[in-house]
């Protein structure tokens, strides 16, 4: 899997602390408003809703007094090896820009929905209807994001337009070197859900930049070059056992995990939970394999 991973100088990533999430859904609302996501007329039909960011409820399945719930916000995982990109017959989606954000270009999409079938995270949504905003509400549409017509697939873009604005700000202030990657300071570019979360459960930044909070959460004080090399290889496993001759040894925060990591998709979205049952649900077979290994 690691051979297929594209290397990027920056890797925009998200760390969601599940233990801080109350399931309030503010991230979902912020996402919808920020990205001109169309209004759902019948939200009871879950096959027709459109939620780039979706909060799932997890439960440990036990009865009182051991019952426990957790909430898991799920944006597009922006996989290092995105299955949606390889199946798209129209090159409407690609992962080709520094930062590793998986793009979705609506005018190019013709709605075959292969990407939706291939996405193991159900992060992609099809526009079954023409978008409609009640009169007056169309004035709330953001000019930074194009509105999607019926018949195309859409998904979370990590608020890509905010990245473009942040880069422009850096250019305007002269905080960059021409011809080199623009390394934005922590917090200069964050997604709408990150900004909105009232509990600060979502952290967003460059997974390769030691100055960024996401780096500190996942990799702590570890060497930036080692982490960079580790991410270039996909950053698989709760701890990296690439060992000698296979790359550097990097240890991820033991409470951090990625969804369905065993598939080898190498997502750029990480989750943190101090509760073992939550980590197990997010990454079941990998946890079992790890336990068997020990």
């Amino acid at each position: 899997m690691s051979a297929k991973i594209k290397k990027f100088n920056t890797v925009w990533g998200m760390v969601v602390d599940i233990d801080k999430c109350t399931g309030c859904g503010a991230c979902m609302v912020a996402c919808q408003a920020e990205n001109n996501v169309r209004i759902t007329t019948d939200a009871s039909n879950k096959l027709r809703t459109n939620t780039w960011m979706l909060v799932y409820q997890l439960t440990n399945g036990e009865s009182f007094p051991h019952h426990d719930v957790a909430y898991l916000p799920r944006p597009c995982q922006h996989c290092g090896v995105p299955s949606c990109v390889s199946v798209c017959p129209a090159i409407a989606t690609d992962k080709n820009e520094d930062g590793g954000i998986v793009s979705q270009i609506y005018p190019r999409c013709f709605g075959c929905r292969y990407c939706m079938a291939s996405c193991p995270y159900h992060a992609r949504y099809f526009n079954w209807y023409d978008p409609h905003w009640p009169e007056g509400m169309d004035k709330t549409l953001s000019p930074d994001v194009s509105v999607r017509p019926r018949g195309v697939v859409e998904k979370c873009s990590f608020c890509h337009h905010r990245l473009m604005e942040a880069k422009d700000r850096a250019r305007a202030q002269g905080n960059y070197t021409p011809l080199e990657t623009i390394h934005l300071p922590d917090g200069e570019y964050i997604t709408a859900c990150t900004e909105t979360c009232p509990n600060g459960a979502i952290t967003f930044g460059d997974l390769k930049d030691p100055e960024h909070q996401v780096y500190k959460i996942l990799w702590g004080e570890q060497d930036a070059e080692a982490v960079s090399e580790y991410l270039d290889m996909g950053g698989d496993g709760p701890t990296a056992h690439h060992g000698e001759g296979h790359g550097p040894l990097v240890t991820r925060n033991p409470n951090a995990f990625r969804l369905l990591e065993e598939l080898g998709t190498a997502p750029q979205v990480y989750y943190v939970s101090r509760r073992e049952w939550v980590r197990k649900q997010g990454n079941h077979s990998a946890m079992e394999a790890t336990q068997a290994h020990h």
Partner: protein
Amino acid sequence: MEERNSTQACSRDDGRPCLGAAAPFFVGFVAALVVGWWIFPKVLFTEETQPIEFSHKTHMEEAVDSCEYCHFEDTDAGLMFSGLPTTEQCVDCHMAPLGDTEAELEFVEMIEAGEEVEWLVYQRQPDNAYFSHMAHSLDNCGMCHPEFEDSPQALCNQCHPDLIEAEGSLPIEVNRLTGYTTETMKMWECEECHAYPDHVYDLNDDGHLDATDANNGCHVCHK
């Protein structure tokens, strides 16, 4: 055999085709060309003119020395794009009429009334395209393209029509169906630079993509 020959409009004993039979095809072909190249574009595009006569040539020759004097980047206000100047900028010179053209007199009246001119834009881009003038400035492009150092205007003209040479305002041809103008950029025009190998691949060749931020990734230009 003899019967069949007799039904043809013209026939020769040696079996060569005659030109008279092909004439309707030539007429049809020419007619199709006229319709396709001349009549259809006239129907498809409507010509609009600027609300007030404006000469880029006069302004460049007699008043200012660069495009940025009026179409500047307002970095302080956080507005990153170059745009159309408001009458506030024009008033620096046009407080009172400088010449004796009718258009200017009309314009000075508008200034006194505090009105804005509803300039038409030659190149408004589609909603799904993102463009940053800041990213395409001389600071960036000039790093590898010294030919623009002497004439920054040439950099602008890579995309914008050269209005300096034109007398007065050029008419704007708007597509009746799409609403775009003939000057609206096509994707291949952006790709002339963005799909250029040196922009797509890392100049330092360390295996990392997009060192220049000018690569051909879809999200670089689309939103």
